[in-house]
């Protein structure tokens, strides 16, 4: 049943999914690349972003949803980034960023954040009104205008992150630490501060994607699981810590998932994505984009 309209829908769903996924996965990839920390709590930062967005637009400012959304775009990364810095200082630094212990530690962080939100915010899935609501009517079906805006904003944020990494001093520090943290330290790069910044930046990217998807999916304390799984798939397929590979993999997996979901079945797309991870791990353990590593 592969028809033109279905293909268009698949492309739309895939592009929106890929843009948001790229934003989330970039954070995870950055943290792994620079710090060698596998952050199991990454999905919870997405959830926190969505919860803060709900808090800003429905609770704090019961005005126009657009105002709440704009405030959330500023507040959520700050709040979540602060939590990440605290986690880095209280936990990760104490265990010397040991790769195995950080897995357990971030798993603990996952439960603390999830259960903390459950206690404070509650178990409900709370809806948010989209900041801008309009429907794009195609001849065969309609599509949410807000979803298209989400894709655009996610691409803008990705571009901004790219500029930060490639054009600023802190970006230079991050890249230097990623390549060789000891040499970087010898050249005067404040590695500890870079670690804290990177962990915060990763969390902020996740939080931003949480703010973006909250008006589509609402805010719910268990919503972190899905983005975590997909981000992991993207990061593994793209090559652990390889940023360009991450973006490439996010585009492939996001659009591929959208296509297969729409044209065949969403379950099949999850199966294929998981098989792809297995295949990449067996055939190209360094990730698909290994040869073009940055």
């Amino acid at each position, binding site marked *: *049943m592969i028809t033109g*309209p*279905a293909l268009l*829908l*698949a492309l739309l*769903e895939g592009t929106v*999914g890929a843009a948001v996924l790229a934003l989330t996965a970039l954070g995870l990839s950055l943290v792994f690349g620079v710090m060698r920390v596998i952050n199991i709590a990454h999905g919870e930062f997405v959830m926190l972003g969505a919860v803060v967005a709900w808090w800003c637009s429905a609770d704090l400012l019961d005005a126009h949803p657009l105002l709440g959304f704009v405030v959330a775009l500023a507040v959520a990364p700050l709040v979540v980034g602060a939590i990440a810095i605290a986690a880095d200082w209280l936990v990760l630094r104490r265990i010397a960023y040991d790769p195995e212990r950080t897995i357990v530690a971030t798993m603990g962080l996952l439960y603390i954040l999830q259960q903390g939100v*459950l206690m404070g915010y*509650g*178990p*409900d*899935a709370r*809806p948010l*009104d*989209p900041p801008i*609501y309009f*429907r794009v*009517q195609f001849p065969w*079906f*309609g*599509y*949410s205008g807000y979803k298209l805006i989400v894709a655009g904003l996610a691409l803008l944020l990705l571009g901004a992150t790219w500029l930060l990494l490639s054009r600023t001093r802190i970006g230079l520090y991050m890249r230097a630490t990623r390549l060789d943290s000891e040499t970087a330290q010898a050249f005067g790069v404040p590695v500890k501060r870079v670690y804290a910044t990177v962990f915060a930046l990763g969390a902020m990217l996740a939080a931003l994607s949480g703010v973006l998807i909250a008006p*589509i*999916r*609402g805010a*719910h*304390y*268990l*919503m972190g699981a*899905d983005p975590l799984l997909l981000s992991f798939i993207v990061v593994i397929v793209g090559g652990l810590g390889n940023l360009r590979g991450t973006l490439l993999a996010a585009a492939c997996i996001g659009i591929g998932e*959208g296509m297969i*979901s*729409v*044209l065949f*079945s*969403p*379950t099949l797309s999850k199966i294929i994505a998981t098989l792809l991870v297995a295949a990449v791990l067996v055939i190209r353990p360094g990730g698909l984009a290994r040869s073009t590593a940055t």
Partner: protein
Amino acid sequence: MRVRSQSTPRGLSRRQILAATGAVAGLQLAKPFIVTARAAEDTLKIGLEAHRTGIGAAYGLWYERTSTAAVKVINAMGGIGGRPVELIVEDDATDAKRGTEVMEKFANEHKVDFVFGPLFGNVVGAVAVRAGELKLPLFVVSEGSELAAGDFNRYVFQTGITNVRSQVTAISPWVIRNVGKKVTMIIPDYIFGYNHRDFFSETAKAQGGEVDAVIAIPPTETSFTKYFSQIPAGTDAIYHVMVGPGVLTFVRELGEFFGDKGPKLFGFIDSLEAVDIGAPGLEFLEGSHLWEAFPRYLSGLDTENAKFYRGAVGIDENGASVGDPKEVSTNSHMFGCWETLFSIKEAVEASGYKGPADKQKLVEAIEATTGYDEGKGHPQGKKQFIGKAHQMFGPQFISEVKGGKLNVVHTTSIEDGLYEPKADYTKQSL
């Protein structure tokens, strides 16, 4: 300057004082429990296994509120069999494994007389088995059709709510006649959805309709547009029933997809339980129809008993929390908790149940029940009870969305939803 572990003038170390303070504080904290334990000898303990967290959380919240309100009313009426009722709530996280652990906790730690409350089919299936093993009477407040099909055991009852098979049997002639003949079903991908698929496909065929396509969506799904491309082009009507945290997203995306041009819609209120029908993005529902078990708006069932129930639970005439008009209840399900507790009251009083030793008398008393009259304890209406199948049958409502509200347009009789259940639990040993 820091002083290290200095003794106080009376010769006590700081550590000893701390320990003593801790012990006193501990006693203070334990006091209420010690008193309760003593007072509890005469109370009837009923355990509510609630979906407080997990994907059924919206239901769990209201199940707990409704049950607390019902227990308050029952206690004000003099309790059950003259004994005060104590409600003990445990969260099963809408999880089957956790559900069975909660059953054990109720049986061994709280030592409750009865348990009620599980709703989601995955949990019900697991805890029903455990209830039989523990011989602990369990009243499910779930619409699963497995009980009446004979899949459970003699200790499981459904006295507060009808099952999907009965609901679908009652409403499908109306749906085929008024909504459309070629129907696409969108269902959650687990036993509850399969009940809908199987029974609606069967009854639709008998009415001259046909099911065009069945789209099963996992209840944990958060994004739905991708499923809608599977809806066949020539379909007349969409029959939707979704559950889980994504229900509002589901209806919103359905609206975005079709606008006001799509096939006609008929849904089970499950797709919109705890969701405000007036929320932005739901305008397309105008004119569509929904099944309800207990009308959300007072206008749909404006009786003294319904008013009494709404007042006690704390919902307004729009079915939202009295304190917060945005907090919409799960009214088509939670009344089942209320009616279940009153059915327990009737069974205990009829059987002369005094404690777990009288369990068998209680089971037999419920099996001898033929129905419940409408009243304060059964505000949804008169009920018929088929004792051997442990299953209750009641009326159903079909409502139209009009002006962002639900208006009841059709009420089915008990007979419309009645079918001959396969189960005969009276043949099982106690």
